[in-house]
């Protein structure tokens, strides 16, 4: 690990956002429900992804951060696929129920997604040696 403080910071940020996302999913926030409905995974998929996020977030704040980072990256890749194929990548919400002030909820989701993805990939790369089984080969 070259810059430990940077890694710890990335773990902190990614963990926080992912945990918030998990809580929103469990609460059934309208935005999550809509998204998972669009994917045809409501509600089972929402709970599965929520559980994965909860696990990933906690691991990012634990000695298993390397694994947590890989898991986070995985979940975020899923989200990227979802946006790319079903949900669209517009930064502007097409839902009329939300006032279009600055950033739409969808745009906010995309922004945080990007941030988490960057942080998680950074953590996974800088801690790759700690991964079980394959760590030695990386």
């Amino acid at each position, binding site marked *: 690990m070259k810059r430990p403080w940077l890694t710890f910071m990335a773990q902190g940020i990614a963990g926080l956002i992912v945990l918030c996302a998990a809580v929103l999913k469990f609460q059934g926030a309208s935005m999550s429900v809509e998204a998972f409905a669009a994917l045809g995974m409501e509600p089972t998929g929402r709970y599965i992804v929520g559980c994965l996020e909860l696990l990933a977030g906690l691991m990012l704040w634990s000695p298993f951060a390397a694994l947590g980072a890989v898991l986070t990256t995985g*979940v975020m890749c899923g989200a990227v696929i979802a946006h790319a194929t079903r949900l669209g990548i517009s930064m502007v919400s097409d839902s009329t129920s939300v006032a279009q002030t600055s950033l739409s909820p969808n745009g906010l989701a995309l922004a945080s997604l990007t941030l988490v993805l960057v942080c998680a990939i950074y953590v996974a790369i800088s801690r790759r040696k700690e991964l079980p089984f394959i760590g030695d080969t990386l």
Partner: protein
Amino acid sequence: MRVPAVFGNGRVMKTALAIDLEKVARAANVGLVVLCGLVALAGHYVSFYFHFLTVALIFGVLLNFYWRHVQKRHALLANFGWIAQFRYLVESVGPELRQYLFASDTEERPFSRVERAEVYRKAKGIDASEAFGSLRDFSHADIKVRHSFYPADEAEMKPFEVVVGASRGLASAYTIRRPVMISAMSYGSLGENAVRALARGAKRAGIVMNTGEGGFPKYHLMEGCDLIFQLGTAKFGARDAEGRLDEARLADIAAHDAVKMIEIKLSQGAKPGKGGLEKITPKIAELRTVPMGQDVVSPAHHLECTDAASTVAFIQRIQRVSGLPTGIKFCLGRTDELRALLREMKQQDVVPDFITVDGAEGGTGAAPKSFMDYVGLPLFEALPFVDDMLREEGLRDRVVIFAAGKLISPGKQMQALSLGADVVYTARGFMLAIGCIQALECNRNTCPVGITTHHPHLQKGLDIEAKAGRVVNYVEALCRGHRELLSATGRTATRDLNRQNIYLPVLSGTAALAARPHPEETVQ
């Protein structure tokens, strides 16, 4: 039909079951990508749930790409891709599989399951008999105890008694009353629970325990057993800043009631001619009188001892400072050097009160592999040599011989006693007695049964009181075995044993060659 060509002339022999690994690997690598694509399509057209798999497979594809085209350290992964991981996987669980499933009862090393089971049974107080026949191989190369037509009666047996330091007329001369002692294992290589369990057991069984070179014997003293304090090459516990002897500190240690003898370690069987580096924690550093944070490497020899004369002078110094019976421990290497050392002792009229002969098969907390495997003489080669040489130099009645080296059962101990030892030592026998499962992790601080570790949560499993009981059982069973075997030899006292009581195999060609005096091996 033509026979397929053999190895060596460019063609490969084909057999019905041969698997072309390269083809399999290629299929596996392409398959991974294809599967990833298929799953992605399924995720798009069938159900989004398939994308869980898509993500996992994308990771797999990326990782596989890295292994095959980027990294350079692992040839197998570079050539074959992800299926090569199976080899690493299987290899990593190999030792466990072999130990649990495939190793036969007599083939494990250093101690086979049969040998370990004997100690476990003794320690647990179930001294069961065996049925049908021995599991050992019988060959002319096996050493055996010779029994007599006329076994001795239990009633005639004399109690075991060896006095150390008597020939110097020491007031502190010590009488050893049981034939087995706990050999040196430092606090450091052992955790405190293990030390205390052994010490408590030693106290109850009435045997002597060697402290090892771990410094001030704080945990040993808590239990009040009789101790041999070991002065290692780094002189932990009695060193000055440069690693030379600090006389005041040694005198302090020797002044403790429980400390009965001093053993100067010149070398040990597992790493003769080599020092070492061990685990270090603040607690260990304190007892070793070494500043924490500073790695102290045990040197290969005592700084004071560079030749025969200085070694003998050092022995005398320790005898004077401690006022206790003092001996030396070594693993035999060159016999000409031993001869010179003994002659120097006669010259200066300084004789160690005991000599501990450690076999090259001895154990350790940590040592380089080549030293463990290839340096030093095995116990049964060295022991008769030392015994003979002491007799030839007329010193045998002034020196007691202790012996160590896989002497974990009464049978082997009896053989050592017949080959010249007066008392036997074992280290690993007692480790097994307190629950060692031979995980071979003593150097990693991860001992699963809490013996050679300093992690509190691993030591928790080692209950001092329960394991002290195991030590007592083990000692009692060993001594019972000794009496039975002694009776079978027709002797009534252990000290009457000699080479008539043992069958030694005929020397092999190389051993016979080595036994011939070497032209240069003449000492003036």
